[in-house]
């Protein structure tokens, strides 16, 4: 049995290995590049220079850090649960890398073309929460435990809006032959050749973006790893290679979800003119499509850095309330509206109108919530006065 990779005939096992190696190798390099970029970008936001010493403009900083981490001692706390502690990084690291199998980079440039690609991506990428909880539980550290519990709650809460926002798009994909709906990422991208889905589904995009920040545990949802509260959360006790695996996993997940957002909402490689250029010249077309994917992904990643440089952290109850009371109902309303439009065959403009109205509603809700002062959850007012008297 022979497989085929980029036009070369190859033994199927070798083929699988080659694809895996490609994914791991590329993504490791990409993650290190992202770490470097984040340091540079945030440094500019903060009027600093960032890394400058290692290599020209500091580009060797990430490899240097990686080498340093490899050389460090792999410590394990005495009371830690050895199996859980040691295995946790793999549960974070492996699923995220598996996800890359289904991501389209350019027309036909996909490690595997999966018919249920979107479902696969969502299913596999959410496994990494298990790794976070394992890390927190296995470390025998209270900060880690608290961080892990927060991560679990957050992961579950934001998985739902994320999935439903993507479902909203998957519903409205219009395929040739008047068929609606697809989970094939390649098809989803191809159908955006003229208008990307962010235009039809702005609310879904906003929900996706917010949920993505939360899934990635990035500011303003970096509650599980909040440096000033739980000192790094589940990773407090990790060092050396295991810690760097978590770190690599985080940045790879950032890249992954940005790629997914670029593909599903921003038109991936297809918009604008992705196919037209490919028809003119094959090689140029592939390069152009790669460029489009990279530009859109890069833009999304840049906004994530931007948010990190300027936003404070939300509190855990606000985070949960925002997901369950605001994002989830709105995303349900979105698929409800989509469903109505599709079933009755109303014009597509209604998709845009409904989604835009939802966006306005979201803004109003946030505005009202911000203006209301917080209450003390654990203490009715005046309870302490009796205590002080005794």
């Amino acid at each position, binding site marked *: 049995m022979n497989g085929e990779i980029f036009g070369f005939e190859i033994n199927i096992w070798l083929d699988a290995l080659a694809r895996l190696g490609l994914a791991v190798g590329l993504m490791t390099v990409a993650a290190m590049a992202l770490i470097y970029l984040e340091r540079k970008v945030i440094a500019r936001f903060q009027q600093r220079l960032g890394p400058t010493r290692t290599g020209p403009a500091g580009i060797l900083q990430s490899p240097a850090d990686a080498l340093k981490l490899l050389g460090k001692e792999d410590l394990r706390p005495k009371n830690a649960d050895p199996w859980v502690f040691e295995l946790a990084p793999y549960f974070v690291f492996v699923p995220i890398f598996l996800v890359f199998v289904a991501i389209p980079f350019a027309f036909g440039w996909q490690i595997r073309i999966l018919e249920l690609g979107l479902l696969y991506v969502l299913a596999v990428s959410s496994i990494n929460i298990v790794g976070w909880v394992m890390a927190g539980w296995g470390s025998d550290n209270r900060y880690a435990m608290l961080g892990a519990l927060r991560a679990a709650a957050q992961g579950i809460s934001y998985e739902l809006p994320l999935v439903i926002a993507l479902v909203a798009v998957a519903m409205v994909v219009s395929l040739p032959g008047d068929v609606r709906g697809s989970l094939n990422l390649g098809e989803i991208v191809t159908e955006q050749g003229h208008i990307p889905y962010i235009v039809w589904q702005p609310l879904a995009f906003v929900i996706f973006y917010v949920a993505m920040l939360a899934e990635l545990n990035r*500011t303003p949802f970096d509650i599980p790893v909040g440096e000033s509260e739980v000192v790094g959360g589940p990773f407090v006790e990790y060092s050396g290679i295991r810690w760097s695996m978590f770190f690599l996993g985080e940045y790879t997940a950032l890249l992954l979800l940005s790629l997914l957002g670029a593909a599903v909402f921003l038109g991936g490689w297809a918009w604008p003119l992705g196919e037209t250029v490919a028809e003119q010249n094959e090689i140029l077309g592939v390069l152009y499509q790669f460029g489009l994917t990279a530009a859109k992904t890069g833009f999304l990643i840049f906004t994530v850095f931007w948010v990190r440089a300027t936003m404070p952290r939300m509190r855990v*109850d606000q985070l949960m309330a925002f997901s369950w009371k605001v994002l989830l109902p709105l995303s349900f309303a979105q698929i409800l509206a989509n469903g109505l439009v599709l079933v009755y065959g109303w014009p597509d403009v209604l998709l845009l109108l409904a989604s835009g109205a939802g966006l306005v509603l979201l803004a109003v809700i946030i505005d009202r919530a911000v203006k209301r002062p917080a209450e003390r*959850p654990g203490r009715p007012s005046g309870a302490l006065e009796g205590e002080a008297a005794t």
Partner: protein
Amino acid sequence: MVANTHEQEFETQELLINMGPQHPSTHGVFRMVLGVDGEVVTDVVPHIGYMHRGAEKLCETMDFRQGVGYMDRTEYLANFNAELSYVLAVEKLAGIEVPERAQWVRMILCELNRLSSHFMFTGAFGTDVGVFGTAFVYSFREREVLLDLFEEITGDRLMYAYFRPGGLAWEVPDNFESRVHEVLLSAERGIRDMDGLLTQNEIFLARTKGVGAISAADAIDWGMSGPSLRASGVPLDLRRDDPYLYYPQVKFDVITGEAGDVFDRYHVRLKEMRESVRIIEQCMERLADGPILPERLPRMLRTPPGEIYERTEAPRGEYGIYLVSQGGNRPYRLKIRSACLSNLQALRDMTIGHYVADAVVILGSIDIVLCEVDR
């Protein structure tokens, strides 16, 4: 019954979380043990004393001029204000008349120091609420400019020891006035940046409004002072209510908050910085040439027997010096009334019932300097 046995088997325990003395968000070496029920704080036990160095006792072995240096080391973010309290106490006890120019320069430096101290606060507070370093760097940019000026004047970035009983150690540099104007411009820019970065940020508002509120009556009971007290709506400002230096001659507003929550404590400080800028501008107009030390200052400063309590409005509140002299050239007993120690007492009252994340923000909003708490 089943539910009952179930409860006995799985007893709910309060989880104790130790924060500090080494924790990224305890300001200085402060330790607090939080009892938490899930994410809600049920108890707070603060531990202080890691920085106790016996500054008060040490001052008893130093003559009145040497003591100034120790004030720097208690309140290391507002050294001029700390020095001022001590110097004013000694002057009053010894009956020294201070020349006018020295007083104006002292006022300018104290207000500049208030600016640098509050910049430190906004930076650290920004980090507490979770802005990744940006508020910190923006604040420190302006604080650095101020520290540069202090270094030009006193020769030191942190431990100035520039005030003397009777006046100043030496004359300010020739370009003092132009430098102060430059520094004020950058400070105003810094305040604007903070307004843009934090005050108008939705998440910042959501995190700080209504958090750690303390009523005016409670705040007075705990002996709070300074911006933390004014945030609760008590318009007590020693610069106006128990005036010293030439504060009665300058115009400024006493800023008060309403809710006494974390946001008010932050906002009062930020507004206060604008008032400081106003005060300095007025002082610069009044600053005239003249001597900086009295003409006849004894080589060995002695005070008649007596005792005195002298307090000033430091950036964190009332910084008081209680000085007992039995004659001679050194204090018999010196007691520092620390603003931070009193303000910190209210921490438990403010924190219980809030989330763990809020505990960090509340602690940050009190703006403690541990060296002053422990002395």
